[in-house]
C-alpha cells in the first residue's frame, strides 16, 4: 500500500469519526450550560459547569418512567418482530405457489411514508383498546418496523447453506425441529443485528409515541424530551440533559457490548 493510499484511508476514517463525535461532545457540554450561554457561547466550555441541569431535568419530569416505557416498548416490539421474522423467513425457505407474493406483501411496508398512516393507526389502536398504553405502542412499532427486521433476518437465513438443512431432513428431522435446532440458531447473528437495529429504532421513535400516549404511564423518553422544548419555555440545557439521560442507557450498553454486538453482527453464518 502506498503512502498516498495510507493517508487517504486515515483521513477518511478520522473525518467521519470527528463528524460523529463532535456533535456528541457538544451535546454534553451544552447540557452543562445555562440557556443564555447555549446561545451566547455555543462552542466553548461552560463558564460555570451547571451539573444541576441534570437534577433539575430529573426533578421536572418522571424520566425514570419514560425510560421504563421506552425500554418496554422497544424490547417487546423487537421480540415480536424477531419471532415473526424468523418463523416467516423459515416458512419462505419453502417454495410454494404464492411465496413470491407473500414475500412482497411482508416487505412492502418498507416503502411506506409512515406519517400518512398516523390516522388509521390511531383508530386501530383505539379499537384494540390500547390507546395510551405501552402495549399499544409496542404493537404499533412491531407492525411498522416489521419489514426492516424481516428483510435483515430473511437475507441472513437465505445465506445459510442449503446442505445443512438437507442433511437434517435426510436424518428425518421434522419441520419444527429443523427450525428450532438449525434455522433459528444459525440465523441468530442476523437476528441480533436486526434486534439491535429494531430496539434502537423503536427507542428513538417520536411521532407515534406522541400521538398515541397522553400520560407518564405510557409516554416515552422521546416525548419526555419534548416537554423541555415546548412553545412556552424552550429550555435547551435541560432538554440536552434529558437527552443525555435518554441516550445514556443505549450508549453505555452499546459501548460495553459493542465488541460482542458488532462481532455478532459480522460473525457470518458459516461455522
Amino acid at each position: 500500500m502506498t503512502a498516498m493510499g495510507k493517508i487517504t484511508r486515515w483521513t477518511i476514517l478520522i473525518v467521519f469519526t470527528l463528524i460523529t463525535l463532535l456533535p456528541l461532545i457538544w451535546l454534553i457540554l451544552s447540557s452543562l450550560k445555562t440557556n443564555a450561554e447555549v446561545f451566547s457561547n455555543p462552542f466553548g466550555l461552560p463558564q460555570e459547569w451547571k451539573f444541576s441541569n441534570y437534577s433539575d431535568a430529573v426533578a421536572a419530569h418522571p424520566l425514570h418512567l419514560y425510560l421504563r416505557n421506552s425500554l418496554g416498548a422497544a424490547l417487546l416490539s423487537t421480540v415480536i418482530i424477531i419471532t415473526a421474522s424468523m418463523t416467516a423467513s423459515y416458512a419462505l425457505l419453502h417454495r410454494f405457489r404464492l411465496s413470491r407474493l407473500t414475500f412482497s406483501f411482508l416487505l412492502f411496508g418498507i416503502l411506506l411514508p409512515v406519517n400518512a398512516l398516523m390516522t388509521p393507526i390511531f383508530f386501530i389502536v383505539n379499537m384494540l383498546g390500547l390507546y395510551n398504553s405501552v402495549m399499544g405502542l409496542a404493537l404499533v412499532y412491531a407492525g411498522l418496523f416489521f419489514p426492516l427486521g424481516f428483510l435483515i433476518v430473511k437475507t441472513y437465513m437465505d445465506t445459510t447453506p442449503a446442505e445443512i438443512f438437507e442433511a437434517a431432513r435426510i436424518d428425518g428431522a421434522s419441520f419444527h425441529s429443523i427450525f428450532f435446532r438449525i434455522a433459528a440458531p444459525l440465523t441468530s447473528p442476523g437476528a441480533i443485528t436486526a434486534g439491535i437495529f429494531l430496539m434502537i429504532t423503536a427507542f428513538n421513535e417520536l411521532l407515534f409515541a406522541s400521538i398515541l400516549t397522553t400520560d407518564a404511564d405510557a409516554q416515552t423518553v422521546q416525548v419526555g424530551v419534548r416537554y423541555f422544548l415546548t412553545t412556552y419555555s424552550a429550555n435547551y440545557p435541560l432538554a440536552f440533559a434529558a437527552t443525555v439521560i435518554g441516550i445514556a442507557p443505549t450508549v453505555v450498553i452499546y459501548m460495553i457490548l459493542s465488541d460482542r454486538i458488532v462481532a455478532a453482527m459480522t460473525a457470518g453464518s458459516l461455522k
Partner: protein
Amino acid sequence: MNRKATVALGATTALAIVLSGCSSAIPQGGGSGSATEIEILSNFTSDISRGKVLDELIEEFNDESDGKYKVVSKAQPDWPTLQQQIRSSISAGTTPDLFLYNYNPTDLSREESGELMDWSAYINEDPEWKARFKEDNLAALTTENQLAGIPGDQAPALFYYNKDLFAAAGVDQFPATWDEYLAAAEEIRKTGVAAISLMTADDSWHTMNALSYVATAKGGPDAYAPGADLDSAAIVAAADYTKQLLALSTPDAVGGNYSASTSNFLNGQSASIIDGPWLISSIQSTVPEPCSIGVAAAPGFNDGAIEPGYTVTDALNVWGAAKQSDPDKEKAVVAWMKFFTSNESASRMAVDGEYPMAVDTELSEADRGRASCQMAQVLDISNAAPTTIVQMGREITTGAQAKLPSLLESLALGQTSPADFASELQTANAE
C-alpha cells in the same frame, strides 16, 4: 445452543411483558371509591407556570368536592400534536372529557361533529357565570342555539421591548407609528443588534403578528375577516412593511422557529418581539434585569383606519367537552369549569400562571402587587384596548395557514413581491 436460545427468548419476552404490564397496573391504586373522574387534556404541562397553577387548582377542587369529583390533568407539551390527538379522538368516538382547542371560524368541524357537549343549558341557567364571558366569544361558539365550548383564553400579542437596547440607539420612547418604528429600527441595527425578533417556520407566529398589526392599522378591523378579499391594498402594504421588518430582523428569522426567535430576544440579540404573555415567565427567569423589558401596544399610522391602542390576539382557545352518557360526569365537568373560571382562579392563573383567561378578571390590590412588571402592563393595555382583533394567521383557512411559511419566506428572499404575496394568499384562502 438451541435450548439456551429458546430460554433467552422466553425470558426476554417475559421481561418485556412485565415491563409493559406494570405501566397499566400502577395508576389504579389510591382512587377514592365512587368519585366521578374526569380527565382534562391540555398543553398545561406541570413544568410551566400555568400548569403548576392548574395542578394546584385541581387539587383544591378535588378536596373541596369531598370525594364527589376527581379531576385529572393530562398534558401534551406539543400544541399541534395535542390538536391532532383531539381531532382523532373526536373522530374515533373517544372524545376527551374536557380539552383545550383553538377556535377557527373557517373550520368548524369539531364544533359540528355532534360529539361535543352542549353547554347552553348550563350557562343560561346561571346568568352570573354567563356574564363573565364576552358576548362575542359566546356568540362565535354558538351554532343553532348550541354552545360548543367555554372560552378559555385569547392571549394579546403585544410588543415586548428591551428598553436598554432602545436607549443605546438613542430611542427613548416606544415609537407611535410604524414609520417611526422603522426609523428607530435602523438606528438599533447600527448598534449591532436586530430591531425585532421574527420567525417564519410553523405558524410564522411572530411575523404574522406584525403583519396583522400593519394590515389592521391600514385596512381596519375587518382587513382579513373571514370572507374578506385578501388581495387588497391593506394586505399589500402589510406585506411591504413585513418585508422591511424581516430585513431588520436577525439573520435566522427566515426559516427560524419560535424557540430561535424568542431566544434571540431574551438574549439581547434583538430589541423587540411581538408575543403573548407566556413570554413573561421566560423574561423573569432569563433576563438579568427583567423589568428592563417594557410592554407596549403596537404602533399605528397617522391616518390609520383604526383607533390606536387596539390589540391583536391569538386565536380564541376554547374548552370543549365530550357528550357524556353519564349525567354525573357532565355535572362534574360543569362544576369544574365554574370553579376554574371564577374570579379567584382566573386571578391566580393571570398572576401566578402568567395566563390571562378569557373571562372578566378583576385583580385585588394584593394580586396586583404580586404581578410581575410585565403582567401589570399587559393587563392595563388589554383593559384599555378599544378593540381586539384575532391574528390573521388564525382567521384564514387552514389550507392558507399551511402555505404561510413558504409565502413569507419567498417574500423575504425577494422571490415574491408584496402584491404577489397578497394575491397568492387570497388564492390559497379561497381554495
